[in-house]
């Protein structure tokens, strides 16, 4: 081991810590983005023209916000958003500080995906629920989120995998985590074994997410 990847063996402790940091960044930003993304996704679907609570103004504003945020390249978002990060977290460096740009980077993407998943719910079923006297809240929770659950899980997997990618980019501004290690140590010092090992760990995480996600989809989608 020492012969193949001497630099990795020399900083084993730091690798373990970086792995945990990546997991922390991914999970913490995923939870908050999930809430925001579901909220925006549901609002987009119900306020759109022909939706159950059609509202042109709300829809148009949300739609534009999502489009705007989705258009900013993440690496630039990291820099642009730093005053907000400073205000919210008190600092712009470190793992927790990176959550702010991560959330703004991923939730609009997730919102759009949730919107598409919910648009796939058969409109006839929504109409049937309305004819049975269901309220908008009941339609959201008992029809949209339930009928669209398998698709929502599918888009969640895609989103988490994208999010893991973003956490590594946050490494560029000193967020910690595997991206930070790969770029600021492995790449900067020409220690290729470190870069390579960081990549392998990330790949393992991605596969794990995919496997677990697929398993959940199979459990949910019994029909």
């Amino acid at each position, binding site marked *: 081991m020492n012969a193949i990847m001497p630099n990795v063996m020399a900083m084993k402790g730091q690798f373990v810590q970086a792995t945990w940091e990546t997991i922390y960044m991914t999970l913490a930003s995923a939870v908050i983005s999930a809430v925001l993304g579901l909220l925006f996704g549901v609002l987009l679907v119900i306020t759109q023209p022909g939706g159950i609570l059609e509202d042109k103004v709300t829809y148009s504003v949300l739609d534009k916000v999502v489009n705007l945020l989705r258009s900013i390249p993440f690496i630039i978002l990291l820099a642009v958003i730093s005053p907000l990060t400073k205000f919210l977290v008190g600092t712009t460096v470190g793992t927790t500080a990176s959550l702010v740009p991560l959330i703004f980077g991923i939730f609009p993407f997730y919102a759009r995906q949730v919107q598409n998943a919910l648009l796939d719910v058969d409109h006839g*079923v929504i109409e049937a629920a309305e004819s*049975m006297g269901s309220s908008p809240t009941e339609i959201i929770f008992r029809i949209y989120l339930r*009928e669209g659950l398998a698709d929502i899980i599918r888009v969640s997997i895609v989103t988490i995998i994208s999010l893991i990618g973003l956490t590594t980019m946050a490494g560029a501004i000193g967020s910690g985590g595997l991206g930070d290690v790969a770029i600021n140590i492995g790449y900067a010092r020409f220690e290729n074994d470190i870069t390579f090992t960081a990549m392998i760990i990330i790949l393992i995480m991605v596969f794990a997410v995919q496997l677990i996600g697929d398993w959940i989809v199979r459990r949910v989608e019994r029909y």
Partner: protein
Amino acid sequence: MSEQVANAIELKDISVTFHNSDQAIEAVKHVDLQIKRGDIYGIIGYSGAGKSTLVRVINLLQKPTGGKVIVNHQEIQQLKPVELRQARKKVSMIFQHFNLMKSRTVQGNVEYPLLGTKISKRERREKAQRLLKLVGLSEYAETYPSRLSGGQKQRVAIARALASDPEILISDEATSALDPKTTKSILTLLKQLNQDLGLTIVLITHEMQVIKTICHNVAVMDAGEIIERGSVAKVFTEPQQKLTNDFVETSTNVKEAIERITSTIQISDFAANQELMYFNFIGNSTKQGVVSEFSQKYGVDVNILFANIDQIDGENVGYMIAIITGDLDVFNDAIEMLRPEGVKTRILTNETLQGGDGR
């Protein structure tokens, strides 16, 4: 007052206009409609006639641009959202594509309208099971809808529609996606529900057969307007409008027969003493030997090319197409005298056929 009590649904001067990029489309134009409690009321028309839009006004799934909707004596446009949802529970609906929830079992689908009501979980289960038994699907309670056939899905949809103890059931082309045999069994079920539960049924369809099988009253819709209405027997034995006649002739195969006959026989090749005649017998006249009696009495030959007998709301209706050879003037006058007794005739010539009469 008593007349008002008898009406389950009253639509007054209903109009629905859709605005489509600076173009206004009038889907429903000033329609008045009264449907009596316990009736099975059919609305027939081709697609795009405005039937679906009209029935969606009844539970305000479609807000009318003008007019009044009165359901169970309530003017439902005046209701607050909460009250409207309550009122909707009394007006159930079934659809052409069933609209079942794929993520819920059959049992779950039937229980759906009862979620969020005061009924306990156990009562809810029992009620759903009772309804599934009623529609003959007890053993499918734990199955998901995707595993059912079309007819079974529609039965589940009917059970679900009944869960909220509705007074009115709206059927939006509910049998249009089903084969004839399944259609018949679904219609039998609807008829049974109408009789056993006193359910008022409003049924829209483009199939005359459906109307003939279960409806008491019918309205014919075309281009957003009701062009003809009345009891099924009357409307379909004495159609006043061409479209109505068209539906009758399609369902009795008369239309097809005329096409077949005129493709093999040229009316222009007829001798001077020959004509092609269409006969329509209603009620008792189907039982008399009109044709044989006349052919003997007036010495004409009757060569029957097509004949069919149909039952509309319990009344026999006969259709016949024949070539008459002989003294036509006398024959035509004589048969015209039978009109009050329910024998109607029409001489088919190239002009009347091309004029769209046999469309």
